[in-house]
């Protein structure tokens, strides 16, 4: 039976309550499969609370972290089952070389996570060679490139050029975003999509998969 108190606590990013309830369930030795469902349901609710303007970004960001820690608490009993959540697709995200601004890219990751995608977050100041390596080896469906500065947006162009040179362009969809980025730029450099903000990025990725 769903534990409404747990679901509510997850949806409100109440870390202390979430951890306390789960610890009690772990200690009691009960089957934790339901906890996994409740955590997932709580995150879905948190996403809905954000969409309606009831919850704010820090609650979503913090809540995603609480969810991850909670998963680790039940992993010893459930094992690989916790990783077998169905995913909508695999997305690699990076803030390009020379650019350390990754708040926007981090938000995209969280919105994608909430929507059920598997994320490979490469961090910031990521050289194109590293991104190419991930595309070749981990085969994401989509790669998202963020650039905040006019000086670094050229890296997006460069990556697409490299993908073509290496014959990898058809293997992955490319979405670009960041403050100076716009649709025409995405068209010019041959990207598949442009995300105007984090939520738009998630919506565009939905349409690419």
């Amino acid at each position, binding site marked *: 039976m769903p534990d409404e108190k747990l679901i509510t606590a997850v949806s409100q990013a109440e870390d202390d309550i979430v951890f306390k309830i789960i610890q009690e369930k772990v200690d009691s030795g009960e089957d934790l499969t339901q906890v996994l469902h409740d955590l997932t349901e709580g995150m879905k609710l948190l996403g809905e609370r954000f969409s309606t303007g009831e919850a*704010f970004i820090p609650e979503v960001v913090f809540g995603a972290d609480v969810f991850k820690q909670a998963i680790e608490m039940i992993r010893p009993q459930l094992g690989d089952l916790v990783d077998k959540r169905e995913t909508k697709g695999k997305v690699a995200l990076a803030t390009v070389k*020379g650019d*350390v601004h990754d*708040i926007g890219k981090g*938000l995209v990751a969280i919105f994608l996570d909430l929507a059920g995608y598997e994320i490979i977050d490469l961090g910031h100041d990521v050289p194109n060679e590293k991104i190419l390596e991930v595309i070749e080896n981990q085969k994401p469906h989509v790669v998202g490139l963020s650039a905040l500065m006019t*000086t670094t*947006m*050229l890296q997006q162009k460069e990556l697409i050029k490299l993908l073509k040179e290496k014959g990898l362009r058809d293997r992955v969809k490319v979405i670009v975003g960041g403050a100076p980025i716009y649709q*025409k730029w995405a068209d010019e450099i041959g990207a598949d999509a442009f995300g105007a903000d*984090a939520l738009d990025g998630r919506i565009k990725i939905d349409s690419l998969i």
Partner: protein
Amino acid sequence: MKIRPKLQILEESQIKEILADAYHILDTVGVNIRDYPPALDLLEEAGANVDRDRQVVKIGPNLIDKTLSSVPSHIAFYDQDRKEKLFNFGGDNCFICTGGTGIYIQDYENPGHRRKTNTHDQIIHSRLVEECENISFSAPFNLYDVPIEVADNYRFLINYLYSSKPPFASSWSKEGFDTMVEMMAVMASGEENAETRYAHVHPNDPSSPLHWSQVVIQNFMDCMKVGLPPIIICIPIAGGSTPCSLVGTVVLETAENLSGVVIGQLVKQGGPLVWGGGPSAFDFRHGTAPQSAVESILMMCMLAEVGKYLNIPVEGNIGRADSKLPDIQGGLETSMGYTLGCLSGVNMMRGAGILEYASTISFEKLLVDNEIAGQALRIVNGKIDFSDVTRAVEVIREVVEKDGNFLKSKHTMEHFKKEFLLPSEIIDRGTRTAFEDSGYKSAVDRAHEKMKKILSEKDPRVVPEEKRNALIDIVRARAKKYGMEKLPIEEVSE
């Protein structure tokens, strides 16, 4: 005696605490300088603790104190040709700069809509800035009708051709920087002592928390080398890249700025630089970074107080509007920024004519902001004259005893222009009848009319053909590398 109204948020003891925290952060956490070994070499030689693997430099208090002592408190600015001295930048003097950084133009005919910027827009903008008596610095914006690789030099060129005011403009690569320096030499040619006459400022944006990227640190150090005053401007999002508290953000920005002071003074002891900033308060509902939020302005004013305490000229991204339109919200945001910024003595307030998180240029907003700036500057630069003459006791006696009024008084004749600022036609203080007769126009409509009037009646500035051609040659040569044979400005006929 002249009264200069002042806002002082932090007490001296609190400024000292902020500085002590910032010193502690630089000493124990350090600053990350990416992929530019010359900066690490310089700091190591000066005694800083350099971790080459992590590219992190820890800077001790003695080095900070030593370098702080050599920063000039004022910078004398000249026009772009370095002929005429314009003003002394520092102390409590306040100046306004346009917003720069824009990538869109607001469409007056289709309010709320915008399109990408081009050469023609920059020409209009620079010509308008030339006529804005309350705007002292001209920051050109990004232009999209040339290859992006050369857009930094190209916008600098257009701005120079149409505005004499000192520009606030960065370059985006080493090549762009060197080309800009080459252009500046052409602009100053024929002037004696040009190298000691400052006519440009170059923003350099370290990224919070405590990062200098390769292009930024290289350009910053090159600025110091060639005597082009750099502005250190971190643009953090409080609650994102800095703590979710006003003073926590000020502490972190202070540490970032101090790292710039140390590096700058090590490159050139006694070289001028500017203590800048552009904090924004994270909007936790929309994920945006408004610099117009009242907390953003408060953080900037406090950061300015720290810079002023250290006797360094101060810049702030202040007076910007985040509204999508040049509307009431935009007017509120700019007015609050300029008013508080002026009262705090922020020497340069950068934000005139820009909307929506510094992305969208509005010509009408620029002209309205010139009016807002005039009124805000009136509070501080105009000063309040407090004397026997202005207290006017004898005038009051004389007028009242004669049962007259003050309109006929010689005192009024002598003071009305000095005591009261007369705004332009953009600010409507006229009668109802005049308002109706002129077609119920808003301030934005009146600004648009003023813009058309300036463009049709005022001649553009004239740059000698020799200089103009030399500058175009320099930029064209660079543009050719990126596939452009002829610059759009070459199609523009005067």
